[in-house]
């Protein structure tokens, strides 16, 4: 059920993001969601893409330092309080969120949230039980 995410190590200097995004563009892969977090020296660039295998190959070919990890994708109504509901369910069940990022699409009905938790399966089970819609990799590709 979990969706795959690319984590790319980027040094804090000019042009590193260009190399990475350029490699994905040339592979003809679309970026669905992204997040960059950084310290003084380096950042981790996280991406959800339409074709993970193709993107990973393109990044490897470009000598990028990249890993693939699984995260939980959640669709929430694009309205006030929707995200609060999701995080409350997780908090009530003692599931810590390591990081998350969100994106909205043209449909405007849903916003999508990418969550990284310690135990994906447990988070998915709890969320499903509470009627939260999860997103699969196929869903992401179709968006």
């Amino acid at each position: 059920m979990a969706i795959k995410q690319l984590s790319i190590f980027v040094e804090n200097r000019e042009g590193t993001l260009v190399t990475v995004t350029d490699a994905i563009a040339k592979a003809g892969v679309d970026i669905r969601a992204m997040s960059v977090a950084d310290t003084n020296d380096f950042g981790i660039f996280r991406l959800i893409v339409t074709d993970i295998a193709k993107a990973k190959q393109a990044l490897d070919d470009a000598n990028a330092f990249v890993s693939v990890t699984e995260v939980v994708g959640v669709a929430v109504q694009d309205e006030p309080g929707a995200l609060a509901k999701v995080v409350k369910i997780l908090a009530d069940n003692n599931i810590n969120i390591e990081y998350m990022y969100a994106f909205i699409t043209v449909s405007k009905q849903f916003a999508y949230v990418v969550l990284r938790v310690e135990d994906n399966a447990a988070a998915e089970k709890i969320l499903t039980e509470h009627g939260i819609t999860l997103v699969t990799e196929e869903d992401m590709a179709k968006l």
Partner: protein
Amino acid sequence: MIFQKDIETLPRKEIEAIQLERLKWVVKYCYDNVPLYHQRLTDCGVLDGAKIKQLSDIEYIPFTTKDDFRDNYPFGLVAADMKDIVRIHASSGTTGKPTTGVYTKEDLDIWSDCVARVACAGGVTPDDIIQISFGYGLFTGALGLHYGMEKLGATVIPASSGNTQKQLMMLRDWGVTGIVATPSYALYLSEAMKEAGYPLSDYSLRLGILGSEPCTVSMREQIENNFNIRVSDNYGMTELGGPGVSGDCEARDGMHFAEDHFLPEIIDTDTGKRLGEGEVGELVVTTLTRKGMPVLRYRTKDITKLDYQPCSCGRTHCRMAKTMGRTDDMLIIKGVNVFPTQIENILINIPDIAPHYMLYITRKNYRDSLEIKVEVINEALLDNYQMLDGLKKRIEAKLQSILGLRTKVTLVAPKTLERFQGKAKRIVDLRNQ
């Protein structure tokens, strides 16, 4: 003023006579008391010195190297009875083990004489108040200068390093006339003094005795201008007992070697052959009077030359030029000896990084800093910031515990550091730019 005028102005012939007599003594002393030397002197046929007829016969004796100190750590090279040893100093070594310096009471007395000579040549008089801003501890510099200054009769303030405001307060309030520090710390202090805003006339400072790291001429001039003082340079190392081996006089045309206690030679680094007067090569030194830890033909790895012409100051002991470089890649950062191999040994044993690295040394506000770039190779760490940051902090902590120096570790992506064919150039020293 010349501290030991009768000795420091001896005619060359007499200096050489003393050296020959003492060389014979130290060879026999080593042969009798240090297993390593006993073996080597036996192997080369010099034995207890029977083969030493003239000074140049020293060439029969094999060199002593830094490795010998490491292999015989901590007291394998000690010649005296441990009950006669009264002091132990140490400096950082190549493998995390320090190099020890071991002294008898007589050694300390001679050491103080040598330092007093250097201080005197640098302009210190018994009327001076000297602030020693070297870090006290195992390091030979602080206590070496301390005892030498006291021997000379100057007033010593054992300030140690750090706490800039307090240093400035003592300089100003206590009428300090001379400062002992590393060149970089002296420069830093001089800048801080300017910033503190008191006029130079509030200070009585007139001279500086700097050491423990190389000082470029431009750096020296800057220190002299900032403090409005006269700065002199000196030379020494733990293996030879610390500072006092040689030092500048007022002519500032080379550092006078304490030739009655040390026998200097210049050799060709590659062939080991002795070179003539004025030729540039590696400095090799034999201690002539040390009892705790005598050293025969120690290869200092410092490149210099010797001048035996009489000096305008009246001293006749030969003069050693400011060191022109080293035969190995030892770095001196914040006064700490650092070998890239030490760093390499640490990095190689850390699993999440590649065995490739680059060292960048910079100087900002007259303070050295060392940055080490390493390639992180464990993909699993990318999932989580804390893990990457934790790796960086672990490496920094490990480096600090071995080097005794705070460093900055920067993680970079795999295969981004230069790969070298042939001799690697992993060190980028930007301090003099």
